[in-house]
């Protein structure tokens, strides 16, 4: 086995040949490059294949100098050790190297023993730092497309982080009860060893039995608790924290019951949040408990956040307690880019940063959005601007030609006309003819309705002051909104966003 991998970047052929031989003599595997850019390319290739433990780099080089190379490397990698070889370098350059966390310096001309000794030591440093980082980051991520491939209506994403050398008992499951209802269960079993994982599997089996008799979250929690107490031995006397959610796809609601976990959090599109479901005792600890449930509407654009545990993300190394920082992070991330998967990954990464040493327990974050827009599985979204209306309309026509609206009947034709008009109005009037303003259209088909969201950055063309609008139409918001609203079944205006619902007759969806 080689004693580390070293990248040597040196433009002077004599020095390069000499250093290459010396490094090889330490037992290291060496790759040599003759300028900074070639060195950078070799380094990048190494990242995806076999990363280097040490970079030995000259400073003055063509194409990309050593300091520029070091800066690029440090943007990607804080672990690899870097030994800078300099020749009467200016103080500014040396300072730059220190600022960029070079690990060592060697003056030319150097003594062979000096290079070999520094290289051997720094290879160990780089290797050790990489091992430690990998241990910190040994976090397995189960993405929704694998876990939830069969039921996008239940939850959008369930991500589980499993720290190094931990098993953990977190689990997430969902059930299709019927066409309209979905049941979700998030659990966290006491302990984080092989037994907790076993108990978790047993508990899911118990849940399978319970949903035969009830689907109400509070009743399910009570029966599960009874089951655990009755079969205490077979569950290893472990208690279980759980959140049960019943989602009604027609009413667009979620009913939540919580046992021993932080309450679910409803994040609304405007950035506000509220707890859903008050927590009661974990299951299996006591013979009775006061498990309750709460039903909340899921408006378009909202996200429900469920998370197991709460220990890692709640406290810091100094004993401070931060009960909301995970939620704050999720809210901020969603507000910034709206991407659930990135949000969940960053939340897991943050818990690693926050923990005092490697976290000892697994953590699962479940994100569940309300009537969804812009997701890949149930809807598609379009970013359009004034200059792109034609493209948007073509896209819309293509989308409406697909199931479930085809074959087109009268109602489907109405829907087509309404959405078309909505887009036309938003794009041509709503943005005030300003081609820099973006109009975004999101469509989301549900079993019995089509949900449309139009987000318009523009201020709109104001309705004439003396105009009288029918009371049922939204007042204000520019010319476009009332025109669109007369064709939609429901209209909700939120700032510059318009949410529309078009009911679709069952014979159309059935077809």
């Amino acid at each position, binding site marked *: 086995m080689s004693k580390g991998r070293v990248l040597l970047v040196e433009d002077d052929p004599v020095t390069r040949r000499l250093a290459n031989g010396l490094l090889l003599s330490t037992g290291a595997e060496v790759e040599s490059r003759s300028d900074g850019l070639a060195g950078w390319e070799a380094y990048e290739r190494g990242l995806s294949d076999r990363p280097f433990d040490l970079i030995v780099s000259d400073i003055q080089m063509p194409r990309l100098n050593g300091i520029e190379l070091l800066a690029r490397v440090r943007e990607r990698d804080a672990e690899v050790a870097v030994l800078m070889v300099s020749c009467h370098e200016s103080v500014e350059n040396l300072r730059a190297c220190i600022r960029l966390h070079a690990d060592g310096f060697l003056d030319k001309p150097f003594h062979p023993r000096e290079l070999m000794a520094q290289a051997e030591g720094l290879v160990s440093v780089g290797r050790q730092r990489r091992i430690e980082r990998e241990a910190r980051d040994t976090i397995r991520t189960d993405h929704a497309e694998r876990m939830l491939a069969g039921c996008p209506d239940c939850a959008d994403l369930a991500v589980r982080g499993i720290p190094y050398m931990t098993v953990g008992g977190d689990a997430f499951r969902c059930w299709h009860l019927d066409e309209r209802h979905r049941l979700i269960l998030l659990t*966290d079993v*006491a*302990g*984080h*060893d092989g037994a907790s994982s076993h108990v978790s599997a047993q508990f899911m089996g118990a849940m399978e039995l319970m949903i035969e008799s009830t689907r109400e979250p509070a009743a399910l929690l009570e029966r599960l608790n009874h089951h655990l107490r009755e079969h205490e031995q077979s569950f290893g*006397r*472990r*208690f279980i924290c759980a959140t049960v959610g019943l989602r009604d796809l027609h009413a667009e609601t979620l009913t939540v019951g919580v046992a*021993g976990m*932080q309450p679910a959090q409803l994040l609304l599109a405007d950035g506000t949040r509220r707890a859903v479901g008050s*927590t*009661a*005792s*974990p299951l299996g*600890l*006591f013979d009775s*408990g*006061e498990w309750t449930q709460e039903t909340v509407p899921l408006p378009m654009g909202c996200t429900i956040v469920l998370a197991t545990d*709460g*220990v890692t993300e*709640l*406290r810091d190394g100094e*004993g401070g*307690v931060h*009960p909301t920082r995970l939620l704050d992070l999720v809210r901020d991330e969603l507000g910034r880019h709206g991407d659930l998967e990135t949000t969940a990954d960053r939340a897991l990464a943050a818990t690693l940063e926050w923990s005092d040493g490697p976290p*000892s*327990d697994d953590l699962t974050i479940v994100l569940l959005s309300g009537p969804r827009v812009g997701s890949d599985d149930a809807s598609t979204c379009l970013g359009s601007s004034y200059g792109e209306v034609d493209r948007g309309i073509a896209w819309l026509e293509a989308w409406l030609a697909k199931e479930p609206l085809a074959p087109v009947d009268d109602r489907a034709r109405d829907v087509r006309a309404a959405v078309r008009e909505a887009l036309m109005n938003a794009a041509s009037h709503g943005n005030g003819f300003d081609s820099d303003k973006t109009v975004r259209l999101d469509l989301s088909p549900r079993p019995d309705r089509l949900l449309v969201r139009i987000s318009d950055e523009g201020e709109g063309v104001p309705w004439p002051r003396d105009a009288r609008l029918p009371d049922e139409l939204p007042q204000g918001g520019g010319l476009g909104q009332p025109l669109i609203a007369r064709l939609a079944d429901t209209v909700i205006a939120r700032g510059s966003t318009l949410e529309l619902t078009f009911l679709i007759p069952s014979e159309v969806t059935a077809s």
Partner: protein
Amino acid sequence: MTLTTTDATLCLRPEGNLLASRAKELTATFLAELEGCEATTVELDLSEVGEVDSIGVNIVVGLFRECESRGLEYVVTVGDPHVHSLFTLFKLDQWFTVQAAEHA
């Protein structure tokens, strides 16, 4: 572990945290102390405990059950705010007294 006994109260004060790695040791110690206990109240003093994991909660509740079965009153004293919030989250205070340590 520090042990204090008055006529009415047996005070158990574990040193270090209540973690899964110490479950067997702590459970055995607590049960041993309960044997022959003539006090009417058992106080589990966690005022110096900074961390309680899920198995630690099991230990606290297990001791409660033992006390309950022996007809003993059970009181837990907590110093760390995080431990206190964990006990509140789990609603343990609905089953036995959870009181803040004087210095907390």
